[in-house]
């Protein structure tokens, strides 16, 4: 449990400081290697994203000079940056890594990128041989916890950007967006972003009407769409199910009377107006028409806000999951420690020995104290001789990177898992299969 985390993130440090700490991808393998070979450190990994830089390490004896490493890596005086740094040890370090991977420590809680970034950092560290045993177990577990948080809570299920909320609402109206069409009025940046989102979700045809036709054509080209001269706007706009409007027009373009015409031409099939222009392009009264849905920029923002607060609620649920997982993980690490394994192995064999002697006592008949001692010495001797090599191997293996695998293997071969859990000592044949 000698885990350490030191780092800066968006909560503790301004961007200037984070920039100072950020490690470019090309240098990451080298830096990770440096961390893992730093005196006193056994394993290490570095996560470097625009929101955080974290050094995760496991020390040999519970002490690691993480600040010394920072000094060496960045050539800085860590004391200068003390106010921006945070540091976690053992249990808290485990909890922190679980929270980071589960996106509970992110700026936008629940955003999915961070898990991928941690996974990349892990892959880099593995590639240079910087993680192997316990840190490996910690990270593998962190990924599993992140997955559990995603599936068991709805922390990541709601959209928290304007464009994704727009797509989500469109799906609430039209179901699948496959084969739907989007009509874009005004070829602005905002529209382009939203249009990209719609295309990514399977929207078919894109129409573009812009004040300067040429710009419309250029815009339409990007999406394989069709440019429409702005004079034909009112005759053509009802061809689309979704209308994205973002012009600089000072007055509203779409009013209720237009909406009525669109609906009658569309045989009342629903239409969705997304008005991201300020001042607005779509008259709010249009929303009163059955079958027309109008969302302006404030409405979209409001949905984003409500989703944000939903996420905060879900985050509490996720924290509980993380806490439970931290406990489970520590429990597991404890059983994977080499000393308890050797002890329970010896206990196990001793039980077997005793049971065998008891079983044969009848046939041995009355034994004198000397004979009794001889039988004891004989059986103990056999066991000690046989166990000598496995125990030495275990002890050396504990120092090796692959120790967890070896220890786990031994525990399984001798079926020590269950015995470690409940202290009841079973007597009987040692041949019972490995427990699950």
């Amino acid at each position, binding site marked *: 449990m000698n885990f350490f985390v030191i780092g800066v993130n968006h909560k503790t440090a301004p961007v200037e400081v984070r920039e100072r700490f950020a490690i470019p991808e090309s240098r990451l393998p080298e830096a990770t290697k440096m961390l893992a070979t730093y005196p006193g450190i056994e394993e290490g990994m570095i996560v470097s994203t625009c929101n955080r830089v974290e050094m995760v390490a496991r020390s040999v004896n519970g002490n690691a000079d993480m600040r010394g490493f920072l000094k060496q890596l960045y050539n800085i005086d860590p004391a200068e940056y003390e106010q921006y740094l945070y540091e976690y040890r053992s249990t808290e370090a485990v909890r922190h890594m679980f929270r980071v991977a589960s996106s509970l420590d992110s700026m936008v809680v629940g955003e999915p990128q961070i898990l991928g970034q941690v996974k990349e950092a892990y892959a880099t560290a593995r590639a240079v041989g910087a993680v192997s045993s316990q840190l490996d177990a910690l990270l593998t577990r962190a990924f599993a916890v992140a997955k559990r948080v995603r599936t068991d809570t709805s922390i990541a299920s709601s959209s928290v950007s304007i464009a994704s909320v727009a797509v989500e609402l469109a*799906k609430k109206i*039209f179901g699948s967006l496959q084969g739907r069409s989007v009509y874009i009025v005004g070829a602005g940046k905002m529209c382009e972003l939203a249009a990209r989102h719609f295309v990514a979700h399977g929207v078919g045809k894109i129409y573009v009407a812009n004040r300067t036709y040429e710009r419309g054509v250029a815009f339409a080209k990007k999406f394989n769409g069709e440019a429409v001269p702005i004079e034909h706007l009112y005759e053509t706009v009802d061809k689309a199910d979704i209308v994205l409007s973002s012009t600089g027009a000072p007055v509203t373009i779409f009013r209720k009377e237009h909406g009525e015409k669109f609906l009658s031409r569309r045989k009342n*099939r629903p239409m969705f107006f997304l008005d991201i222009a300020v001042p607005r392009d779509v008259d709010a009264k249009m929303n009163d028409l059955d079958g027309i849905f109008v969302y302006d920029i404030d409405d979209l923002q409001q949905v984003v806000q409500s989703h944000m607060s939903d996420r905060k609620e879900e985050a509490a649920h996720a924290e509980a999951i993380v806490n439970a997982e931290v406990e489970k993980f520590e429990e597991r690490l404890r059983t994977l420690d080499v000393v308890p394994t050797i002890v329970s192995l010896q206990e196990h064999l001793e039980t077997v020995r005793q049971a065998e002697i008891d079983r044969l006592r009848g046939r041995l008949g009355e034994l004198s104290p000397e004979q009794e001692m001889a039988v004891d010495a004989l059986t103990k001797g056999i066991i000690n001789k046989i166990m000598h090599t496995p125990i030495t191997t275990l002890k050396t293996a504990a120092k090796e990177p692959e120790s967890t695998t070896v220890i786990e293997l031994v525990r399984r071969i001798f079926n020590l898992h269950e015995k470690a859990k409940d202290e009841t000592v079973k007597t009987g044949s040692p041949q019972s299969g490995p427990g699950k």
Partner: protein
Amino acid sequence: MPLLWLRLAVAFYGLGLVYSLLLLSKRGDVLARVAGPAVGLGMIFQLVSLVEFAVLEGKITASVHHSESLLAFVIMVVFMIFFVRYRTSSPGIFVFPLVFFLTFASATGPQGFALSSPLLKNSWTIIHIVLIFTGYAGLFLSFGASLLYLIQERSLKSKQPASFAGRLPALQTIDEIGYRALLLGFPFMTFGLIAGSVLAENKYGSMFFADPKVLLSIIMWLVYMVLLYTRWNSGWRGRKAAYLAAFAFIAAVGAWAANYFSRLHRFNIS
């Protein structure tokens, strides 16, 4: 025995009822997993009950109460068809309570006046009843779907998509369910009425038209047709369609209740 199976069915439908009530609260998710298999089992027991009765008695219904069970079953069958196609149990909000109460009434209520006419053993009568019931089921499902449509539409218009409406299918999907249910029910209703007319014409002559149940059924059929026509011609959906469907539904309930004052459908004159 048929009653025992029926009472078992009631118990399972009860779970469906609880589900539809709790769907309005937050705990609907857990129940959703239980409700499906539960009402499925309910259907099986109900089918056993109905078949056993038919085999024993040689007719499919013996009283108004008894036919409620048959109607409930047919509604469930239509619901299941849409459940399999659209993977949504949302219409269950309206379907499960109705099915539960129909089956419950059938399994426990007083049997009322018996329908004793030998006409009931006529296969034309049986066809007439089953066809009409399927028509009812389609109409009811469509009515339920238009109510869901209104809920979803209101939620979208309010610009604060609520958590309950969040679990409903997309507006378009609900719309499709409503329309397809109408399309499915209409031919059944039409042929059911024709079968009934032929039957009554044969038996009672043209005077059968003066019967209240017959008149209400014809009104219902006309509204049904208007619903389909407006939908097909000008795409009426949402509020307008819901009003029309509600009207048709009330006519249907009236037609159903008319058994109590219809001479013709007492099936006790020989």
